[in-house]
């Protein structure tokens, strides 16, 4: 009986610990255990200022995916977006870098297009809109170019 109790107690403890670890990493850390529910598309931006891997991708304010990675190709910022499988994106959709609030974090907003053709895995989003550079805007305003 004593032997049985010891194993039971250790088992309960280890399971409780792993449940906590799983909660932390899957729920809070967004670890993708069943990582097949996404497809990747790419979008070329003139300027990807402020966007970081893990930033959210939204359509109409609803999160549909995340930024996977950002690379420099031909002196253009190429942002790879992983989008949920059940969300289809038209090939003439527009991706723009926006800010939440004035000093909030950057995210990518996708404005749906009207085309019948959807972008497949690895496809390219042609229409993009770079981040609004507040400093540049201020400079223009101050020197009267607007």
């Amino acid at each position: 009986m004593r032997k049985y109790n010891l194993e039971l107690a250790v088992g309960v403890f280890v399971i409780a610990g792993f449940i906590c670890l799983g909660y932390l990493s899957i729920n809070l850390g967004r670890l993708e255990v069943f990582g097949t529910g996404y497809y990747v598309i790419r979008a070329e931006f003139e300027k990807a200022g402020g966007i970081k891997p893990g930033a959210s991708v939204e359509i109409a304010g609803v999160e549909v995916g995340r930024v996977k990675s950002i690379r420099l190709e031909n002196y253009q910022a190429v942002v790879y977006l992983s989008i949920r499988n059940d969300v289809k994106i038209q090939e003439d959709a527009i991706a723009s870098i926006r800010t939440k609030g004035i000093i909030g974090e950057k995210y990518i907003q996708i404005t749906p297009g009207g085309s019948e053709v959807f972008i497949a895995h690895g496809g390219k989003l042609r229409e993009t809109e770079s981040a609004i550079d507040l400093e540049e805007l201020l400079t223009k305003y101050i020197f009267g170019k607007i």
Partner: protein
Amino acid sequence: MKKYIINIGARVIQIIRTIGHMFIFLMNSIYFIFSPPFKYRLLLKQIYFIGNKSVVVIILIGSFTGMVLALQIFYTLRKFGSEAMLGPAVALSLIRELGPVLSALTVTGRAGSAITAEIGIMRITEQIDALISMALNPMKYLVVPNMVAAIIVFPLLTAIFDVIGIFGGYLIGVKLLGLSSGTYFSQMKQYIDIVDIEIGLYKSISFGLIVSWISCYKGYYTSYGAEGVSKATTESVVLSSILILIWDYFIGSLYL
């Protein structure tokens, strides 16, 4: 004058020798971890001793840490009107720093001292010598189960600590201070990355190794008599705590 210089030199040599001795002990025990036969039964007993018996303390300390964090951070954040960041602030400080460090310090006080005392008493009553004379490896019996158990147990205790702390913060932030529960958790999900959780994990695993290493070493090479064991126990707790805090800083600066 010459006497003082000799004195200083002798002390430095002594310190370096101790460090080397401890390191050899560590390498020896790591070697024995991977060499059969494996003592599963002893390992299970040590997991029970270090892990199960610490759970209640960990839950208590975790919940109150989370609650205090939420309370204090809330009043700071309110000055900037950004109470919405309470969730990420509580969760990040728990997962990255406080969870691993506080649970390691707690377990040091609760289990590390007991391990030192146990091994130390076996040393002064010559039970370790008896093991050797029966051609049984004392490292395998006394040190290895403790080390493996600590490396397994520490991350799990830290995870329990983090989760309990986050819910303690939830209790204060949402139920007492009136934040919406959606804000608390969704902001948290937004800001916590898998990297943060990995850092916490690395920290707790290395703390497990440090605590079990120091406790076993101090017990294994205790000086004789009841006084020797009491001194070894004190030293093991103090040294483990210091090393935990120093190592925490190093890992923190490495992974920033």
